[in-house]
């Protein structure tokens, strides 16, 4: 230990050593993980290769059966109606129908990315207990306020497309709130045990799916409602 100098001036010739400081009188504590392991090569790599092969076969079949779209040459003077963004942005384009661009095009996507990034840094997203099992009174109040104001907001701006999934998730949360953890019903037991992060993410997933599907298939000229099977 005597030749070990901490900080910038450490002697580069010394290879680093792992040092353990035992500050209190403790007995040795060995935590062993007795989990079966296999070699990455060949076990994991071959399975990965197999998965990719199945994928490539599926993609090749798809490419043999369906042709990529190609319309007439780009013409800035002829605007198609409706002009649609790529499918993964149609959820946002649907929002653009209700809110000004600064909200639907800038604020919402920015908030989404920020929300995704910070997920693992908040303990509320780490805790695994059901949302209504601990501090039930407080969480119920918060839930009522958030669900009601969000629904009213969407209703006020006529965003029924986003309101439907919101009401659905709120309904299931209500079931969760009034089910016992020992409920004989398996589905109820499942709902009760879901933490708050699960509910938010599921709401997001549902909104994303519904808005994207509506934007892709149910929107026609002037962004009016159309039925895809009646055209």
């Amino acid at each position: 230990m005597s030749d070990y100098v901490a900080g910038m001036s450490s002697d580069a010739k010394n290879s680093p050593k792992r040092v353990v400081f035992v500050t209190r009188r403790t007995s040795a504590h060995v935590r062993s993980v007795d989990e079966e392991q296999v070699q990455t090569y060949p076990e994991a790599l071959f399975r990965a290769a197999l998965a990719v092969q199945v994928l490539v076969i599926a993609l090749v079949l798809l490419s043999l059966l369906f042709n990529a779209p190609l319309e007439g040459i780009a013409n800035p003077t002829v605007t198609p109606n409706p002009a649609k963004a790529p499918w993964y942005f149609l959820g946002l384009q649907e929002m653009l129908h209700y809110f000004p661009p600064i909200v639907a095009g800038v604020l919402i996507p920015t908030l989404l990315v920020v929300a995704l990034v910070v997920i693992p840094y908040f303990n509320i997203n780490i805790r695994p207990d059901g949302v209504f099992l601990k501090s039930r009174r407080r969480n119920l109040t918060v839930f009522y306020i958030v669900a009601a104001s969000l629904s009213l907001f969407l209703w006020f701006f006529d965003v029924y497309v986003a309101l439907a999934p919101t009401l659905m998730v709120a309904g299931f949360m209500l079931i969760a709130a009034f089910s016992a953890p020992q409920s004989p019903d398996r589905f109820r037991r499942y709902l009760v045990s879901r933490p708050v992060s699960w509910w938010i993410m599921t709401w997001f997933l549902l909104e994303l799916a519904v808005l994207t599907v509506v934007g892709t298939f149910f929107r026609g000229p002037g962004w009016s409602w159309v039925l895809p099977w009646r055209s």
Partner: protein
Amino acid sequence: MQPRTEATLGRLMASRLWKSIFRSGRGTSTLHRSMAIQQSVFLHILPAKVRRRMLNFDATWYLGTLTLGTFLVLVITGILLMFYYHPSVPQAYADMKDLRYVVSSGLFLRNLHRWSAHAMVLLAFAHMFRVFYRGAYRPPREFNWVVGVILLLITLLLSYTGYLLPWDQLAFWAITVGSNISSAVPIVGQKIHFLMLGGNQVNANALLRFYVLHCVILPLAAVLFIAVHFWRIRKDGGLYVQQSEPAKGAGEARVSTEDSAQEAVAKP
């Protein structure tokens, strides 16, 4: 395999040349197989060993692996497409017609690139949700989740910049709709819009910018962050083990995230 082929292969793998390239040499021992990973610049970002139950389909649904698979298909078909494509107006559109009617298998090549691109976006989203629902974003994997979000954004940008390249009506108006949104950013909106398109509307400059981003800058960024992503999986102690996932291995002790963190330190 035919015995002859196998013998030839064996001799090849025992040769000096082979050993100079693949330092692990020939053999099926645990040592050889660990060396196969550790001695390869490409594979050494993976751990030499993995938990058996992480190979089960129901752990990850192989969604990350499949996302990487689509990316590889896209790189290969993309390079081939570049041989036939000029990022200029109106040649870009003519090249699409040529791919369809003149180039052998050109249509198939374009289809494969197009459908793989859609698949990659879909799979990246699916992978993200799968990781979330397994709880695999929890410490010590927080940063790898962030790297994942960056990869998702790169994937979306790759797809979006590629969307303009055919230079047909679909491409032109999709990019017009999308890029107009950037004008809504307060104060600098118009500047961003101009910077993105190299003009006030989608034109030949925009096509060239999107081409460079699509074929050079974004793929390089993707490769870089995929490498970091994989490296972090190894450094974070392998894939996340869910308590509720039954261990199929021998007598299993408590495994917590804490344990895997320690493991990662003990076996760098």
